[in-house]
């Protein structure tokens, strides 16, 4: 079976859930080889199916943006001739993927939400036009380079050989042009990751800037907290909370929109959620076109009552 290269993301050494999802998807195509820049917990990579683990330890990968990783990965692709290359569809992942694809003259798919294999043919699924269309596509040139969104598969443990191979690669000077001057790791909110959570409770302009009720409901449900761009633009929540076209795409089991009108750009980030609930005082708000259940009312009275009722039921 041929090798499938999987770019692993492991901020502060901790392998992300989307990276494990990629290992699971890679096994549909061939034998997963994890590619790690910096430190990562190799035991967990092995547990989730990595046959090989290529590690790059040079600090240059943390000092300069994107280009060094792309050079190294493209060289590995040339060397190993993999059946496919899978990367997380993150800001950095997509840029690395694009450069690797161009260098290896291979087609590129970004933002895949599923990857299926039928008789050797790899087909990807993507969402288009704010989630209004599902698109099936194939790469027609070279070994497919596919950037996959979080939550596209459930990570399945399946012990691999986990053979670690430290790769030394001379990063060309030309790739050392964009210097990372400072880096501030994101502080955890203590709540589930927005893109990984089973339940997301979001607030919009309708919160008037007070997210207390939204957060209380989120905590009662064990949910992640999200926000509309209006809430982010107002400075009420950092950009990492934003759901939508220029924020995160979420597809949880349950999405609760509070004081959010439901603009197309917001829908783009949430309309594939399994169950959608909204609270909005305007019965004409477009969000109600999407919902399984909606309450026309003020979040200031509806949310505390809901939170109290949930707490009561939990006993």
């Amino acid at each position, binding site marked *: 079976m041929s090798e499938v290269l999987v770019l692993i993301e492991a*901020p502060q050494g901790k392998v992300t859930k989307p990276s494990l999802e990629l290992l699971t998807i890679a096994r549909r195509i061939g034998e997963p080889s994890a590619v790690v820049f910096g430190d990562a917990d190799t035991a967990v990579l092995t547990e989730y199916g990595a046959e090989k683990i290529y590690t790059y330890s040079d600090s240059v990968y943390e000092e300069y943006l994107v280009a060094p990783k792309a050079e190294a990965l493209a060289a590995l692709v040339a060397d190993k001739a993999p059946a496919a290359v899978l990367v997380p569809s*993150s*800001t950095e992942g*997509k840029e690395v*993927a*694009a*450069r690797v694809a*161009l*260098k290896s003259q291979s*087609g*590129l798919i*970004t933002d895949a939400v599923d990857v299926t294999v039928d008789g050797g043919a790899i087909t990807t699924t993507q969402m*288009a*036009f*704010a*989630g*209004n*269309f*599902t*698109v*099936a*596509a*194939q*790469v*027609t040139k*070279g070994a497919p380079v596919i950037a996959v969104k979080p939550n596209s598969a459930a990570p399945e443990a399946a012990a691999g050989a986990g053979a670690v191979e430290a790769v030394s690669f001379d990063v060309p000077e*030309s790739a050392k042009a*964009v*210097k990372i*001057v*400072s880096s*501030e790791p*994101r502080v955890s909110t203590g709540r589930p990751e927005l893109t990984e959570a089973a*339940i997301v409770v979001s607030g919009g302009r309708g919160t008037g800037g007070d997210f207390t009720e939204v957060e209380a409901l989120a905590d009662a*449900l064990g949910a992640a907290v999200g926000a509309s761009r209006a809430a982010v633009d107002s400075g009420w929540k950092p*950009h990492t909370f934003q759901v939508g*076209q*220029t924020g995160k795409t979420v597809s949880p089991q*349950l999405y609760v929109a509070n004081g959010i009108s439901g603009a197309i*750009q917001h829908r783009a980030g949430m309309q594939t959620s399994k169950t*959608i*609930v909204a*609270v909005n005082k305007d*019965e004409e708000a477009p969000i*109600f076109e*999407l*919902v*399984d*259940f909606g*309450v*026309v009312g003020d979040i200031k*009275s509806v949310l*505390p*009552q*809901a*939170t109290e*009722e*949930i707490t009561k*039921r*939990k006993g």
Partner: protein
Amino acid sequence: MTKIVVAVKYVPDATADRTFDADNTVDRENVDGLLSELDEYAVEQALQVVEAGDGEVTVLTVGPADASDAVRKALQMGADAGVHVEDDSIAGSDAFATSLVLAKALEKLEFDMVFFGMGSTDAGMGVVPTLVAERLGLPAITFASEISVDGDTVKIRRDGDAATHEIEASGKLVVSVTDQTGEARYPSFKGIMAAKKKPVEEWSLADLGIDGAEVGLENAWTKVESTTPRPPRTAGEIVTDEGDGGTKLVEFLASKKFV
């Protein structure tokens, strides 16, 4: 004197009913187009850079005849000149082909920096800026949510998924900007009048020395097999809060086993 080129795309209006053609390419005929809103932020940032010093902004678009609307809008906002690359064989191009055309056009233009939006609002992959940089061998400082320019050094804030970085590069370079950089200006009446007299060049593939076989739908490195509209959501239950809205909400959540 800073010369900035801004690459802008003409896209179908996101608020209209967008759809695909029979050949699975984006339907650009039946939906009104406009300058991609995400590229307005790039135009705005470029204008702010030249206004703070001395320079000029040229907008560059690759697209069908109507894409001249996108160029005109950017000129009305304040850009100085436009370049429109139009050629029938470009239709249906993928990101690789688009980046090739843009890179060849940029080779013909004089510039210090080229600005991009963070992604096009139609089939946006957000990779064209990085691909253009790769082709031209230029540094790419991408996804800027804040930009500061000091001489030929550009420093940006980049909000990544795991961390916020400050990144910096110097010399001739590629920048892409997000919608966090701040509101884009509306064209003023004066701007609209002035735009009528600004020069716009029309280039074909031949002008750029590109062979038609390197671009277009037939030569894309990926193929869309099918496009399927998502089934409409079935109408949900809407209740009006009469003092029991929260309780009703929880009853629904419980019926779905979320509580």
